């Protein structure tokens, strides 16, 4: 045998043997690696991607799912906007949503667990102790440098709008979140809605005063068989300011001539409570108000059990009208003006969205391993393209551009699955409820397809500016203050909720209201007011 062939054979044989060995080992490894790889990708990748480029990072994102959205998607990751955003930026997002109806409980759990997601979108003023405490607790991080370095769009907006700049900061100037910015003219999106068709049927006009309201409700009950003429949830009652506003007070802290006042401690509030109790006793207020959830509440309205509901022009009026009209074409809602006590009064507490929305605020948590990339990613929503994506979705799919004006496609406006525009929008982007980014009025114009919606918008806008005087701006407290306030509010709120329910339901006689107030004072509500006052004073000086 020649030297060459012998050598070659030896080499070939060695390679074969080695290859066989490697294949065997490699094969094994592959087998083992596949399932673990699969599981790993599912689990949190928050901290594990150090050193990778921004193009391939993934962040986890906690936020409550808006009612419109929860109706059509199970997670915001299904929303086209975020898919598109991932395509554009390469940032993958893992959304985490609390169960519908358990937003507050789950938020508290999240904070308490310490197992924070990279990003939390919420109303940071609801955080126990407020945004300063959230910063002090370390739950969220200061964003000043991050925004300055990575968020040119937001920085520009902040520079151009003093109000925006003020509202994203604490008193100490710390920027604690990236907001929803609304610089348009439409600021009031919610209010009371009456069943117009019932009003028409009963020959009633849209009620203006509290008295009107009462009569209307009575008519609903007696003539239309409404078992819950005015339906609400405990939360909604507390959220909407129209009723206490008629009595010149608000639910929580409000301003009265530059002085901070606590609503429930005021006499006006007592009156409001008394009214509610009256309505409850009479059966004008849904007896299950304190056991309702939004879905039930809405179903009351749509099933003809109720004729008055607090809600949103888009999400409530639009959605419900669209869905009920499938079976009952006569269904119609009308947005009523905020009630006043006396004829000729002007409602002082019309809900007005500030430039920076109270919700839809995104905080970067301490768990975030890529804060710069995250901020950069969020900043896109403040730029022209990002804002278009947020408000209009994907060109060609959800809107078309004509003369520089985006117009929603039929996918949104005449959804083939019979989704209301509100729900359709919620499926593809986040325009019709608070979410971070720059809002665009042009969506509203198309969003409010029904004429009654346009009307309602006008109605609610009428006295919106009056509330500027009364509504407490988003003041922030120092960490110590926050802590103190949190402690006080913790007790107060629980007591308040309990007592509110009791008073309204009649378990507790209204006569005991003063006792209730003194109890509040014992709980240091005045101190809380003081703190808020101090915060307000500071805010005013910003």
């Amino acid at each position: 045998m020649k030297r060459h062939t012998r050598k070659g054979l030896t080499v070939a044989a060695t390679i074969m043997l080695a290859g066989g060995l490697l294949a065997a080992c490699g094969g094994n490894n592959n087998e083992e690696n596949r399932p673990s790889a699969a599981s790993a990708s599912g689990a949190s990748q928050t901290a594990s991607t150090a050193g990778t480029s921004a193009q391939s990072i993934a962040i986890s994102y906690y936020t409550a799912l808006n009612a419109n959205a929860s109706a059509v998607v199970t997670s915001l990751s299904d929303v086209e906007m975020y898919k598109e955003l991932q395509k554009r930026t390469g940032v993958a997002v893992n959304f985490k949503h609390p169960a519908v109806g358990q937003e507050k409980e789950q938020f508290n759990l999240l904070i308490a667990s310490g197992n924070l997601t990279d990003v939390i979108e919420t109303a940071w003023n609801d955080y126990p102790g407020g945004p300063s405490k959230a910063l002090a607790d370390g739950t969220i991080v200061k964003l000043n440098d991050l925004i300055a370095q990575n968020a040119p769009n937001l920085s520009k907006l902040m520079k151009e709008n003093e109000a925006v700049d003020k509202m994203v900061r604490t008193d100490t100037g710390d920027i604690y979140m990236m907001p929803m910015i609304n610089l348009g003219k439409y600021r009031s999106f919610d209010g009371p809605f009456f069943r117009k068709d019932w009003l028409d049927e009963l020959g009633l006009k849209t009620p203006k005063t509290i008295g009107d309201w009462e009569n209307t409700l009575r008519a609903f009950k007696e003539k239309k068989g409404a078992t819950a003429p005015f339906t609400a949830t405990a939360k909604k009652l507390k959220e909407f300011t129209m009723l206490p506003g008629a009595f010149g007070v608000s639910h929580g802290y409000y301003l009265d001539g530059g002085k901070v006042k606590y609503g429930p401690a005021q006499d006006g509030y007592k009156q409001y409570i008394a009214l509610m109790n009256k309505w409850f006793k009479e059966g004008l207020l849904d007896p299950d108000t304190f056991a309702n959830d939004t879905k039930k509440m809405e179903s009351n309205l749509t099933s003809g059990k109720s004729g008055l509901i607090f809600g949103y022009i888009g999400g409530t009026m639009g959605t419900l009208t669209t869905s009920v009209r499938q079976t009952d074409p006569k269904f119609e809602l009308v947005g009523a003006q905020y009630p006043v006590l006396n004829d000729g009064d002007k409602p002082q507490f019309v809900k007005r969205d500030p430039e920076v929305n109270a919700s839809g605020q995104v905080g970067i948590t301490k768990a975030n391993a890529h804060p710069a990339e995250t901020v950069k990613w969020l900043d896109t929503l403040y730029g022209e393209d990002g804002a278009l994506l947020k408000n209009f979705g994907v060109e060609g799919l959800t809107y078309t551009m004509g003369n520089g004006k985006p117009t929603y496609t039929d996918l949104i406006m005449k959804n083939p699955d019979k989704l209301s525009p509100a729900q359709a929008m919620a499926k593809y982007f986040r325009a019709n409820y608070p979410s971070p980014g720059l809002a665009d009025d042009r969506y509203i114009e198309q969003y409010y397809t029904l004429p009654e919606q346009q009307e309602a918008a006008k109605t609610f806008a009428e006295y919106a500016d009056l509330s500027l005087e009364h509504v407490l701006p988003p003041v922030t407290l120092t960490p110590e203050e926050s802590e103190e306030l949190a402690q006080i509010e913790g007790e107060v709120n629980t007591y308040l909720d309990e007592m509110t329910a009791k008073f309204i339901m009649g378990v507790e006689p209204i006569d005991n209201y003063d006792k209730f107030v003194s109890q509040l004072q014992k709980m240091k509500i005045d101190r809380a007011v003081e703190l808020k006052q101090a915060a307000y004073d500071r805010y005013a000086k910003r």
Partner: protein
Amino acid sequence: MRKRFLRFWPRNLLLSWVLSYLLMLCIPIAVSFAFYNNAYGVIKSEIMRANLGLLRQAQQDVDGHLQEIRQLSTQLAFHAEEQGLMYWEQPLTANQRYMLASAQATFRTYAASGSFIDSFMLYLPRSQYVLTNRAAYGDPKQLHQELYGSTGLTFKAWQDLMNDRYTGQFMHLNQAGGTVASQTEPMVSFMRSLPLSNPTSTMATVVVSVKESKLLDTIRAVQAVNKGTVLILDAERRPIASTGRIEPDELSKILEAFAPFGDAAGSTQLDRGGTVMNRIVSATTEWQYVSVIPSSTFWVKAERIRAWSLAGLAFCLLLGGLFAYVLARRQYHPVGEILRLLSGKARQAMERHRDEYHFIREALRDSFDESAHMQRQLQQQSSVMRSNLLFRLLKGRLESAYPIDEALAAYDLSFPRDSFAAVIFYIEDFSDLFRSTGGEDEEKRLKFVQHIVRNIVEELTNKTYVGYMTDLEDNMMTLLVNVPGDGDSAEQVGSRILEMATEAQSFIASRFYIDHTVSVSAVHAGIPGIRAAYTEALDTLEYKMVFGTNRVIAYEQLQEPDPIQTYYYPMDKEQHLINAVKTGNFEKAMDTLGELFEVNMAMKAVPIDVSRCFMFDLVGTIMKTLDEIQLADKRQFMRSWDPITRLLKRETLQDMKREMESLLRQACEWVDENKKSRNTGLRDRVYQYIQEHYRNSNLSLAGIAEDIGVNSAYLSRFFKEQHGESLLDTLSRIRLDHAKRLLRDGGHTVSEIATMVGFYNSNAFIRTFKKYEGVTPGQYKEI
């Protein structure tokens, strides 16, 4: 090459190697196979175990969840019973409403924890309230619409369901749900009637619902691994959830299969009909978890192992076989080379052998034999070579560059000392030794004698000094003795050698009847001295002529020869001898001879050559004498007398003398005898005639013949016969003799003498004189 391999079929060496390698290979393969079998079994059981483990995992998960559900239902029951919710009737008081609201708030907290449970409700028929995890519904229809509005379940049907009696059963219900309207979500609902304590009445119903998809999630992990179908059956063996569609007949088949094993809690595994079925019956919930996997998928890993193992085995065999062959061939290569090497020299053809080894063995054996044979020959040669070397040393015939030390070593000659002496043993006669035997050839006898002499001499010598004997050469064996040059004085060494030689000589001569003469040289230093020693010994040996044979002659004994000395043999003595012989006077001849010998032998240190010359001269004399005698059968006598040969044979002077005596005696006797014979007549008359008439220059053969009265031709022949020479020559010689006398006497000129002695003229005289005498008369006159 290939042909050659096959030549030894079937007991081919290559084949046997390949087979033995393969056999070796069989061991690991057999062991591996055994291991594989074991492993296969283990893997199979592991697969079973793993599967069962997964299933058990799922079962435990679900059991855990069911536990949760049960617990929740109990909590709800508490509210219903303890707090009295289920007893209330419409219209509700404010307090009751408040309590309802509180209860609902609590429910909301129950729901916050745990995501397995989708929803629950507490159905209170008396107050027609339904408390769910989300809200309180005063109108069940409203709830029904919400939950089941888009499903086929009517309100009545649902109500009946709610009013039924349950002790903790699971039901399938489809709720309205999903992201798209009109989509339904399959749910599994746990139903429990309250009060728990009273089995007969139904005052409230607790319903805890779980999304079927959530249940499936737990068993999907099991299914994901093995791609079969996993089912969860409730205690009544109705399917609660299933990862894949199961036809009713399939289900019954499965149930049938497990039927013999009952419904006791525990795990069962079946492998039949192409499917493997695992079942775990939960002890706590009596639910059954069944996985049905096609055998091919279930055992896929084991089968893969089997396939790999068998493939590996085949590969091993293949590769092993290949390697075995390659290696065997590689190893065979040198064998092949050996074969090739040997085949050229093999005496037998390769086919005659059983296998390569046999062939090699035989070839080598032959080779060894040959080698041994050659070795022997070489040894023989070696002794010859050794002898040759010794000879060359002795005779000094070595080139200057000759590697003497190597040669000495090669022939096993070692000279520890630096000086040498030579002792020659000359074999004279050994006929006495072989007297009794006979019939052996001369060569053998000679060898035998050599052998004896060598052994004795070498033995004797090597007692004191190292000595080596040469082989026989011209009847001579030389002993080269290596003696110390320093230390002992040269005399002591010399005397010791002489002693040794003497002892040897006497021993050999007396015991073995070998007549020999020994000559001993003096001691000479160095390798070159060997030659000198040898030459000395040779020279010394010559003197046996003088000292006689069968004795030891030492070089020291010889005296410095007198260079001038000659032998004693005057011309008048010679004449006396001649006359004596001529006249046949033996006594007179002996006298003269005796005298000559006496004088010669008395002379000291006669060189041997001189002695020899004397001998030859004697022989010459005799020859001349006899020549002059004119006797009839001289030739015949000459032949038998043969004096030269006889004389030359004698080696010693003594012997020569004796021989001479014998010769003379014979000659004299013969002459005497022949003198008496009258048949000398004609011869004598002619000779007489010549003697008287030589002066006559006209003398011729014809004349003489005429005068005597014989035929001239006859006379010529006859004369020649008798005298040995022609008549004319005799005539000439006689004339010359007279001429010589006359010349010696002087007083006459050459030409006068010419005519006086009978030559025709002086020219003829001068010519003839020169012819016989070698010189001219004129020159002879001067001498």
